């Protein structure tokens, strides 16, 4: 199920939703490669929704902000809805002070809420608290 992406970030597929994330050490090349790869996957997998978990991202500067906005626009043109989930509060504060609202980018408090918004529901037999356990 896990397909290792060339950027190192896994892109999981859940029905017609793609789930992926950004790691903290995001350099410019990786950011661009990530956007390209995700756009390819949306098209090849016929994805209708994309969840991007950014809970590990420690800063979003205007370069990454632009990448997220452009990725959102490209995905929408391809017919997929993007939700960016789990932004750290200091990152949100800093973005506002930079004057960047991530216009057009849909957000969610965390990955689970983002997935729910994209119409995916946890199967009833899945035990509670799996999310925490997975953090090791």
């Amino acid at each position, binding site marked *: *199920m*896990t397909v290792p992406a060339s950027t*190192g*970030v*896994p892109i*999981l597929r*859940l029905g017609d939703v793609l*789930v*992926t*994330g950004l*790691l*903290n*050490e995001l*350099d*410019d*090349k990786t950011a661009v490669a990530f956007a390209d790869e995700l756009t390819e996957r949306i098209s090849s997998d016929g994805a209708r929704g994309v969840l991007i*978990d950014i*809970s*590990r991202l*420690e*800063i*979003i*500067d*205007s*370069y990454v*902000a*632009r990448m997220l906005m452009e990725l959102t626009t490209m995905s929408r043109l391809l017919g997929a809805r993007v939700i960016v989930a789990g932004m*750290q*509060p*200091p*990152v949100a*504060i*800093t973005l506002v*002070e*930079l*004057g*960047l609202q991530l216009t057009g980018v849909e957000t969610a408090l965390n*990955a*689970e809420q983002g*997935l729910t918004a994209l119409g*995916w529901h*946890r199967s009833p037999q*899945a035990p509670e608290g*799996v*999310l925490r*356990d*997975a*953090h*090791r």
Partner: protein
Amino acid sequence: MTPIGELHAAMADLTGDGPEKPEKREKSEAGVTGGREAPSMYPVESEEDLLTVRHAVRAATIRAGFGIVDQTRVVTAASELARNAYIHGGGGTLTIEHPAGPDRTGLRLVVRDKGPGIADLETALTDGYTTGAGLGHGLGGARRLMDEFEVDTTEGRGTTVVATRWASR
């Protein structure tokens, strides 16, 4: 495991740890000895340099005792200014200084390049103004993220930005 659990596990494997706790990433040592730290200069000549600069500035904010929000502000401002020196200024340097007054300490970023300079500084500081492909929020945004902000620029000679953030107490 839920898909999100699986994703987080995979991301933890890639970074070799659990969810990031920025404050804990580095143990403060220089900060507690009371000695002033010497300035340190970093080249800004490549995209890798931008990453190195971000690491160095983050570490310095932690040693200076900045809280997580101020850490994030200063690292983000450094990222914007260093990228400007690299993209618009054709490369340059970023120096981290440790200003200290009688009753306060802080962190100062000196970002210098020998590029074309900025012809109209007021306009360049305006949100949304760019001569490149950026969003045009870097310069003005960095000014808002820092307590003090000065730009010294001469057409054809280069640009130096000096930006200071004081540790809140």
